[in-house]
């Protein structure tokens, strides 16, 4: 036997002996793909914080990797495949647009579990998770309704998908509740993260006389524009504390850590199952950031009371009577919206005059 083959076979035998022993100790590999850079200070930043929370929780028992700035579309499939081939057993895909790539890759890797954020397609090895952001929007909408002097509030939307439309409707309903004269202007940026374009969108709203800006895009650019114009806005996805106490008067923070820690824990003890999670203020997944002193004390108290009521499950932000924008009835008096209606929401509620682009 040549020395080279001897070495090769010896190492192969050693490997074979080592594998069963190592299976116990080898850390669970968990992969993440992000739609933006981890330093975006918003959406992706929060997902990465949760990833770090998973590492802190389980230490050596897990090993996490992430790929950032993955475009939604075909490239996402490449990134997911790469993570699956690298031995990740649980993969989190953290943007709506990763939905079909996740389904395609999941079909090829039945042993790998996938978690897709904000989507609606599930499979044996694909679970979805989402946060009830609209609960937080009800709180910021209430503040917006009280704070506007021009009675015009503006909303920068990213893409016209159910998640964003829920937010617009919820903000409007609750602004209207405290200020019947309020009008809502909507601008679609067609991007989750494009600071220059978000700034332009904010400027366009301000030029229409808007003095409170709500945003469903991830950069701080709209807040900077609001500040210049003496308007106010809200932190989105992360706290955006640099703009305290004004223009950022409150914020909606996405807190993914509890969910990520729970799901990774289930992988570790083998109880992971596919499903659809949709948690909100009550579960700590949607957090309202500090409401600053730029907001009058009674408005702050009202907003916090609403937050607590939603958190305790005593109030649903979509409670009838509510009509659709076309005048047809949606929810009867006292009726609350079923989740299925929310997850496929493609209409504005009555009172919003903007059109949803088709």
């Amino acid at each position, binding site marked *: 036997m040549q020395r080279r083959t001897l070495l090769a076979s010896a190492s192969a035998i050693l490997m074979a002996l080592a594998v069963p022993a190592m299976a116990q100790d080898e850390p669970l590999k968990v992969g993440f793909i992000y739609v933006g850079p981890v330093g*975006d200070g918003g959406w992706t930043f929060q997902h990465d914080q949760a990833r770090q929370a998973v590492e802190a929780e389980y230490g050596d028992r897990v090993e996490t990797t992430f790929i950032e700035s993955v475009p939604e579309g075909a490239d996402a499939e490449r990134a997911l495949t790469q993570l699956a081939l690298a031995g990740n057993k649980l993969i989190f895909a953290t943007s709506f647009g990763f939905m079909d790539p996740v389904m395609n890759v999941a079909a090829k890797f039945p042993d790998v579990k996938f978690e897709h954020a904000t989507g609606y397609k599930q499979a044996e090895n694909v679970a979805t998770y989402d946060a009830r952001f609209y609960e937080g929007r009800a709180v910021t909408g209430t503040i917006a309704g009280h704070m506007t002097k021009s009675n015009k509030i503006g909303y920068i939307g990213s893409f016209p998908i159910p998640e964003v439309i829920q937010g617009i409707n919820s903000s409007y309903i609750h602004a209207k509740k405290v200020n019947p004269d309020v009008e809502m202007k909507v601008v679609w940026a067609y991007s989750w993260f494009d600071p*220059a374009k978000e700034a332009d969108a904010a400027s*366009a709203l301000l*030029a229409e006389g808007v003095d409170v800006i709500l945003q469903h895009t991830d950069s701080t650019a709209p807040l*900077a524009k609001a500040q210049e114009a003496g308007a106010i806005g809200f932190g989105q996805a992360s706290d955006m504390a*640099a703009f305290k106490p004004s223009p950022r008067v409150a914020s909606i923070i996405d807190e993914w850590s509890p969910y990520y820690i729970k799901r990774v824990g289930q992988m570790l003890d083998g109880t992971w199952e596919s499903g659809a999670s949709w948690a909100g203020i009550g579960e700590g997944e949607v957090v309202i950031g500090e409401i600053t002193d730029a907001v009058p004390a009674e408005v702050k108290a009202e907003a916090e009371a609403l937050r607590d009521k939603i958190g305790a499950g005593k109030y649903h932000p979509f409670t009838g009577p509510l009509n659709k924008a076309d005048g047809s009835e949606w929810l009867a008096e006292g009726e609350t919206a079923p989740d299925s209606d929310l997850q496929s929401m493609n209409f504005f509620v009555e009172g919003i005059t903007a059109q949803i*682009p088709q």
Partner: protein
Amino acid sequence: MIDPLSVFLLLLSASTPILFAALGELIAERAGILNLGVEGMMITGALAGFAAAYATGNPFIGFLVAALAGAAISLLYTVLTQVFLANQVASGLALTLFGLGLAAMFGKPFEGVKAPPMPDGPFGINWIVWLGLLMVPVIWWFLNRTRRGLILRAVGENHEAAHALGYDVRLTRTAAIAFGGAMAGIGGAFISIATVLQWTEGMTAGAGWIALAIVVFSSWTAFGVLAGAWLFGGVTVLQLRLQAAEVDVPVQLLSMAPYLATIIVLVLISARQTYSRKAGGAAPGSLGNNFHALR
């Protein structure tokens, strides 16, 4: 109703980053350099300018540092293409990737802090916007009315002839690349210092690529660049304003318009080259080709 003046004011600031970057690239391309690293130089300027403005509290020092940083990182491209005669397209792409990564790494300490406020210039319009508008006639004058401008164009049109006449091709190109870097740096810094007031990774979000398209759209003229920047910036602003005013327009069509215009301009340019003897308006003859004196 949409007030045209307010749209124009928004357009001015929306088009400034791409105007600076495209004017810089115009000079580089007129010298025969196709630098695809605009995005990388912009993001470098965005970070360096933001960091300097934050540290000193003076936004104008920020813009100065942004220009220097943009020029400095463009040196890398100069070394690759002018010393080692590497392929310009590949080197430019490398510069973009490198710049994005470098800025992301060095930008970590600057996340979440805010830039100092920027004082308004005359008519409530930012000083840097004025500077950008001023650069358009200056660059036109330089390219068409000065000796150095003519030498630069000669180098770009036919580097061998320029070399035979005794002009230093590599020196001219190095200067043109550095100028392009400085302008891209200022353009990037406008986004971080004047528009967003914060540093975020990847914040130029493709503006460098639009700048490259504008240079082609302009058919390599300074005023063409201005028109292109206003068209791209104007369409962005207008479609957002139309949405805010609830005018029912197909947003996708409007967003597509500048790219469609670029394609039409390209077709017109090539038609003019095919059917007329006049060479005016076409790409510089030596664009994208490296020069070596011994060849």
